[in-house]
């Protein structure tokens, strides 16, 4: 491809397209659903379409405010992130790692720019005596699945271990995926992750923060890891469920 010629052609094309936009009717979409758009790209013209998450209005245009995938929600156009670090949110279940134990509880890494605090009060359903050795509950290096109970404006994060399914994770391995892929990896009502669990006979817990715990026989674990990586890479393409199903069947789980 001759970049030099292309550059000139592109300039002319842009000018033509911009001229065309003026003649188009108001409230018009300039992109389709599932299009990938870059920051600064014009998405819609007119005032009938509303700017949703990841977009902003500039005079008569709605413009992309990030790299993302176009999604239409009624009259609102929004962008699904394709990447980006996790931001702790209230009510999220996350997999966190203990990095410090002090008088008040445990400090945790959350795979985000912000650490979280697990206070003694929230640590377990049991009563913990003052002055007890906290490391008997959770030690540095432990992975736990916990729930975020509060995030302040300064991004101080509090979590709890009191709730169904919340516990220390023993054995297995923890892998990292892009946090914005988590919904795809879980699937509608857990359908995708259940499919992987069944095919690989592994225990799998997916944290909203992009950390995933997998436990099973070594070869099955590897297959689960590879399947999850595949979901991550192809998450924005259609027909994902069928492709993953085919992938799992092809590498059928070896029985224990």
């Amino acid at each position, binding site marked *: 491809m001759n970049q030099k010629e292309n550059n000139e052609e592109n300039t002319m094309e842009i000018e033509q397209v911009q001229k065309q936009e003026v003649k188009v009717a108001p409230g018009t979409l300039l992109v389709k659903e599932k299009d990938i758009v870059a920051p600064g790209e014009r998405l819609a013209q007119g005032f009938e379409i509303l700017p949703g998450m990841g977009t902003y209005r500039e005079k008569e245009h709605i413009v992309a405010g990030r790299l993302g995938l176009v999604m239409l929600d009624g009259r609102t156009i929004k962008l699904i992130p394709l990447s980006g670090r996790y931001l702790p949110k209230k009510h999220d279940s996350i997999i966190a*790692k203990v990095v410090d134990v002090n008088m008040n509880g445990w400090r945790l890494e959350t795979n985000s720019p912000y650490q979280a605090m697990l206070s003694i009060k929230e640590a377990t359903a049991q009563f913990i005596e003052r002055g007890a050795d906290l490391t008997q509950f959770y030690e540095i*290096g432990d992975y736990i699945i916990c729930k975020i109970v509060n995030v302040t404006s300064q991004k101080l994060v509090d979590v709890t271990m009191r709730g169904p399914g919340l516990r220390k994770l*023993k*054995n297995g*391995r923890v892998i990292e995926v892009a946090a914005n892929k988590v919904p795809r990896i879980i699937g509608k009502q857990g359908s995708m992750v259940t499919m992987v669990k069944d095919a690989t006979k592994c225990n799998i817990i997916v944290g909203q923060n992009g950390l995933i715990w997998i436990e099973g026989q*070594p*070869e099955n*674990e*590897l297959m689960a890891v590879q399947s999850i990586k595949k979901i991550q890479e192809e998450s924005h393409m259609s027909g994902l469920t069928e492709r993953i199903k085919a992938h799992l069947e092809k590498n059928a789980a070896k029985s224990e």
Partner: protein
Amino acid sequence: MNTGEKEHIMKLLQFNLRLDGRKPIEFRKPLKVETNVIKTAEGSARVTIGETVVLAGIKVEVMEPFPDTPNQGSIMVGVELLPMSNPDFELGPPGIQAIELARVVDRGIRESKCLDFGKLCIIPGERVWNIVIDICPINDSGNLFDAAALAAVAALKSMTFPKQTDGKIEYKEKTNKKLELSDLPISVTVLKIGDLFVLDPCTEEEPVASGRLTACSLSDGTLCALQKGGDEPLSAEDIMAMVDLSVAKAKELRKLIP
């Protein structure tokens, strides 16, 4: 360090598997060495081992020889662990990790005698070449030792001298004169995890190793440099076994250099 991760890695190794499904002595793919990738350098190479990518570039200078070696030129190896390549690397002058890497790569080249320093002499006692090899990782996904050493040797082999008149270098005028190395010293690092030996560690495996041995060898298997790393001691049997693995793998890697 998360002991759970170490136990998990060791458990996988019992099944002859690693975190990414490789066998213990398997190198990642792609595995390649490209030379002449940087036109401003007198010699250059890019080494790719899986996702680890390292650049090496050579710039030459003319200087007065050191007093104790009036008829010999010199080489200098520098490593800059660029923060771009690894979230744990910080800006600033080379730390101990970069210094160890540079010195181990340097020893492998210098002690191998593959380079005749006498050939770097221009005017005895007055003027000699100084060859400076700078190594910069682009992405560090583990095993910088081997990637850096391989890049340095490949860059040296492909290097051409620029024109030099009366001590002044015309960098833009290249000659056909090469270094003519007598051999290619190749470094391969072996890690001990639990009771097993592993080659080409990835990022997660490096902190989990109890012992590490980097061995640099020539084509006939002669060793020209050794460096033991890691917190735990190694037995003599361990070392001999690790050397064997290193020399065998070095023979394969040597073929990759164009």
